[in-house]
């Protein structure tokens, strides 16, 4: 592992977390971003759950692709295999957490079932393959993307909590103002483009 490789990992980390933020520039995981960002507490819970699942899913999907699908020339099955891996993983994680750490389950449990259809999870797994990442790169990319997701959703929740007491024009109350906030956030994140 030479220094070039480490620099490369750092670039992947920064670009996945900020520049290509899964939500604000790739539009993956919009549903939870808009749906459960009204409280910081739930946003943090969702973010942590997503971080755990995306990182694990990146490892599993990367392994499955490199050691099963690719050698057997079954690349075209990746979508179906990945979604099954993710669905099974989420179920498993839910059962394990429930059994061994009730406290953690109380905190994250309600968000886990939502994650199967979170397109960020499948999206990141597919992107890892698309960009030809190896296992370590996939893990870094998965973790960083999830970190970006958490940053975006927590920031959004923070802003929304404050906006609750603001005087917003009737027309923009609710969904529209959330989207306007997202617009401004996306613009701000657009500024990270020059980083790498």
């Amino acid at each position, binding site marked *: 592992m030479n220094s070039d490789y480490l620099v490369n990992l750092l670039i992947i980390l920064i670009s996945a977390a900020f520049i290509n933020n899964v939500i*604000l*520039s*790739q*539009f*993956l*995981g*919009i*549903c*939870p971003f*808009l*749906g*459960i960002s*009204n409280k910081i507490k739930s946003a943090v819970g*969702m973010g942590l759950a997503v971080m755990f699942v995306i990182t694990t899913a990146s490892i599993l999907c990367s392994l499955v692709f490199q050691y099963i699908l690719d050698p057997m020339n079954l690349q*075209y*099955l*990746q*979508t*179906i295999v990945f*979604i*099954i891996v993710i*669905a099974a993983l989420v179920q498993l994680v839910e059962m394990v957490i429930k059994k061994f750490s009730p406290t953690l389950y109380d905190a994250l449990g309600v968000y886990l*079932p*939502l994650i*199967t*259809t*979170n*397109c960020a999870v*499948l*999206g990141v797994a*597919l*992107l890892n393959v*698309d960009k030809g990442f190896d296992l370590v790169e996939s893990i870094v990319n998965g973790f960083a993307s999830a970190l970006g997701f958490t940053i975006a959703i927590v920031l959004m929740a923070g802003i929304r909590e404050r906006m609750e007491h603001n005087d917003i024009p*009737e*027309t*923009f*109350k*609710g*969904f*529209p*103002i959330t*989207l*306007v906030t*997202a*617009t*401004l956030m*996306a*613009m701000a994140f*657009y500024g990270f483009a020059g980083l790498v």
Partner: protein
Amino acid sequence: MNKYLERLTNGLFKENPTFVLMLGMCPTLAVTVSATNGLGMGLSTAVVLVASNVIIAALRKFIPNTVRMPYFIVVVASMVTIVQLLLQAYVPEVNESLGIYIPLIVVNCIIFGRVEAYAAKNKVGLSLFDGIGMGLGFTIALVIIGSFRELLGAGTIFNYRVMPESYEPIAMFVKPPGAFLVLAVLTALQNKFRLPSATNKKDKVSQLTCGGDCLNCNDREKAERKED
């Protein structure tokens, strides 16, 4: 026959998946940089939806209730892969410009929502028309949003120049922030004119886009809907 027509108009207008139900926001925001992209995405999704609806409706009596979710996932993911392969083979341009958003149709709320809420309980014919209606409703919505963004962001619609040469395109509209902004204005207009939409049911903000829970979306909807 009227029942079938009703399904079509239901998907196109009354329960338009994008404008009214606010489902499938990821592709709606991501691929609508141009009208062409919107059309490609809309039609691909429509095909997957129609096929999945028909298959699930046909098999609905054989699907054990306990494992219906994995069942749906397998069927939908297969349909998506088939569509993707066909696109790669015969219309590679579409596949290219939509990239990973094609396989991501699998996790589009619209698909699971319809399969679970409608096809799993209704006859094949009705499910077919439900799929067509919803699919076309989604397509039309994406084309409208795509045209709007392309018009402001590039001065063209379907690559035909519409704006005069002197028009300086506002590039932001074809970039990510523009997607959010267009949708913000759209939903604000719906609020303003009190159009039927998931966004202006005042007390249910947390249920937007099913509160992020596509798989159980219809359970929440069911409580609200009286018919069916």
